[in-house]
């Protein structure tokens, strides 16, 4: 078998629909599960991978937030803007992929120190979210924030700076072990003169080394564009991207056979992300038992997912600040390697913060308030919450949640708060 086989239609049940949407959006609401079941798996996935029109209210609020961030040169404002998009956009998967590329091409405002350049780079990730990786990588190489981040201006003919050349191979396209130190030195020469002037990409011919270079065993008068193309043609590239996609959507520890299948799909589709992602998330492998509890929620997944599905009057700056404390400071990843994710999200201090987040939200002291529809919408509880929030859970765990709901000594609001407090404090809730 060298292709991913699709999930049989009959296997797409409520639990599968909830799982699909938890992985492709930020959390899932019961009405979204109803709609996905009515449409079926292929149509749902196709819809999530197509640009949906935004509401007028969204467009106005989004523009105002962005304008505020620009006017004040405030990165905190830009964080609030992006969180608003994640919480309210009609295209949640596009935001999730934007975040994936932000992590892949991890660039930090701490060095770039320019809000508008960080916003422009974010737009680039969004534009190519599920597009052609060729366009994305070429775009990133000329992106102003990236040129600042990886020292484009310091890469001069007589003094090549290897920073960008190294990371384009190690972290952006190939991964360790697929190139030599010599390849990096030669590639750095090809990128000499790729600089920034007046905030825009500028090819400074006087600093460019036009002499022949030898990269991956091929010799020629390679320019920066050629180096990008050589990386994109390199057989390691699809596999490297396959690993990233699987870490984002399927498992913190993807198996080698699955990496191979996705890499083959990427090669077949010439590094176009959309058809590959479609094949992956409609496949039987995606829904396999071993993947249902194989991914730990990132801070964004936890916080945005919980707030989007369950909260109102969200305080965006407080949410952004919480994400920073949980280890995922938007626009400020710790290094060019991005966030390691997976088990690294979970520490003693972040466990406590994840628990304290639940307390704050349920008590309505800081981040926002619970939406009352959660317990007044007439849906059967706690079954609906077990489906939307936990997915698969052991019988003991389901029974413990039910016991919290059925202890009938309080008004509905009190019962709901007690039950959600308990449910959101479970280890199961930290699974994506």
């Amino acid at each position, binding site marked *: 078998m060298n292709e991913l086989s699709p999930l049989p239609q009959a296997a797409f049940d409520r639990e599968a629909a909830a799982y699909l949407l938890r992985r492709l959006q930020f959390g899932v609401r019961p009405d979204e599960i109803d709609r996905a079941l009515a449409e079926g798996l292929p149509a749902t996935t196709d819809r999530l991978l197509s640009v949906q029109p935004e509401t007028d209210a969204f467009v106005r609020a989004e523009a105002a937030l962005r304008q505020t961030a620009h006017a004040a040169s405030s990165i905190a404002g830009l964080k609030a803007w992006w969180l608003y998009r994640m919480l309210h956009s009609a295209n949640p998967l596009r935001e999730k992929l934007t975040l994936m590329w932000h992590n892949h091409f991890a660039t930090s405002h701490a060095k770039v120190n320019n809000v508008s350049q960080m916003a422009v780079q974010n737009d680039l990730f969004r534009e190519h979210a599920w597009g052609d990786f060729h366009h994305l990588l070429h775009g990133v190489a000329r992106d102003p924030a990236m040129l600042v981040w990886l020292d484009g201006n*310091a890469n001069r003919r*007589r*003094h090549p700076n290897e920073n960008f050349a*190294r990371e384009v191979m*190690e972290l952006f396209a190939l991964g*360790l*072990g697929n190139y030599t*130190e010599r390849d990096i030195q030669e590639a750095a020469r090809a990128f000499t003169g790729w600089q920034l002037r007046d905030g825009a990409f500028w090819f400074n011919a006087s600093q460019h080394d036009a002499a022949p270079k030898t990269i991956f065993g091929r010799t020629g008068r390679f320019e920066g564009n050629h180096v990008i193309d050589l990386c994109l043609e390199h057989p390691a590239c699809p596999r490297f991207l396959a690993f990233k996609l699987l870490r984002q959507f399927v498992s*913190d520890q993807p198996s080698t056979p699955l990496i191979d299948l996705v890499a083959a799909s990427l090669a077949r589709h010439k590094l176009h992300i959309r058809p590959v992602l479609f094949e992956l998330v409609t496949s039987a492998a995606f829904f396999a038992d071993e993947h249902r*509890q*194989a*991914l*730990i929620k990132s801070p964004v997944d936890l916080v945005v997912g919980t707030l989007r599905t369950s909260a109102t009057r969200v305080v965006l700056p407080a949410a952004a600040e919480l994400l920073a404390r949980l*280890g995922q400071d938007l626009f400020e990843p*710790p*290094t060019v*390697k991005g966030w*390691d994710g*997976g*088990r*690294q999200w*979970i*520490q*003693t*201090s*972040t*466990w*406590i*913060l994840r*628990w*304290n987040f639940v*307390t*704050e939200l*349920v*008590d309505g002291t800081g981040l926002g308030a619970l939406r009352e529809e959660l317990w007044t919408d007439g849906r059967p509880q706690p079954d609906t919450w077990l489906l939307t929030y936990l997915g698969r859970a*052991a019988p*003991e*765990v389901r029974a*413990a949640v039910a*016991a*919290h709901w059925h202890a009938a000594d309080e008004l509905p609001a009190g019962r709901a708060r*007690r039950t959600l*407090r*308990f449910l959101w*404090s*479970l*280890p*199961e809730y*930290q*699974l994506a």
Partner: protein
Amino acid sequence: MFRIRSARREFLQVVGAAGLVSLGGSVPRFWSQALAQQDGTSAGERVLVLIQLAGGNDGLNTVVPITDDAYYRARPALAIGKQAVLKLNDRWGLHPSLEGLHQLWEQGRLGIVQGVGYPRPDRSHFRSMDIWHTANPDVVQPQTGWIGRTLDAAQGTEGREAVAVGLDRLPLALVGHRVVCPLVKSLEAFRLNEPAGGSPLRTADWQRAVQAPAPPRGELEFLRRSAQASLASADRLKSLGETYRTRVEYPSTGLAQRLKLVAQMIVAELPARVYFVSLDGFDTHAQQLPGHAALLAELAGAVASFVADLEEHRLTGRVLIATFSEFGRRLAENGSLGTDHGAAAPLFVVTPHRGGLFGEAPSLTDLDDGDPKFTTDFRRVYATLLENWLNVDSSAALGGRFEPLDCV
């Protein structure tokens, strides 16, 4: 002594009050060892404090070869002059910012291991740091680190735990398959908000739920184990701030404050055997002189205060400090008054009663791609720390036998 005993007693009272004694078998030893010590036995275990110098510390400007012409030729702008160094002997001197370490040298407590590195040096920060953390240069996507594997192997026999202080994430060195090491940023970060109606974490339902069976080695099992360990760590760390006093005035630097927190935890007799702290910023590609001097001053000032604090608490005999960095820097300075990624470099070991220069300094005329060649495999240093200091077998963690050095 009285203070130490009383600190532990107070701390155990908090523990007992929290009712956590009943937790199941998956609770890390970090916790249960404290209970074992309640009867007063086996107090006073040795402690290892690892200081990571992240970014690649310039070893040549740290331990300066003051009689080597090759050094002065390769660094016309950056070399530290013979008159400027803090002299160790006729051939070597410390960077002038390392006053606090030089005092330890004069007390015979500073060990310097020369030329530490590994075969086929990798000049990627991430890859080389991974190699130092895993002690396994051949694994490309490493999952566990040398301390984590040591703890995994020791589990069930004795409490040997590790705590990372002040980092954003758990260093790979401390990651094991089984053990979950706590990450302490500040004591403030461990305040669990308990809602008025009682925390769900204190209910029998929650305890049952986190002890339900889960597939071994999966993410859910990991989350359940770490949830229990985190709750236990939070409860015990909460009581630390109240029991510790010192007359030492630590500098206001980040590293000094982190080491102060480590001192607090050692004084309170947490059964951790290893503490891990980091000082970042050693990637000195440009305008190196002022930045590097400030970093070394931060290192020496923090270590000196920490050692003084340990002395005040009569703990010096039990604590060993070791530094490491992912690589040294290239011998030749670059065109931006800085140095690029290199390979072998010296590291420091502060011990209770042994000092000196150990190992062989690499030649500066026989280079590997512009960098000094390593003379001592870094795994021999690790073997020294594990075998000679912590008294544990090193072969499981290091994947083979590495001969300890005589610096400890």
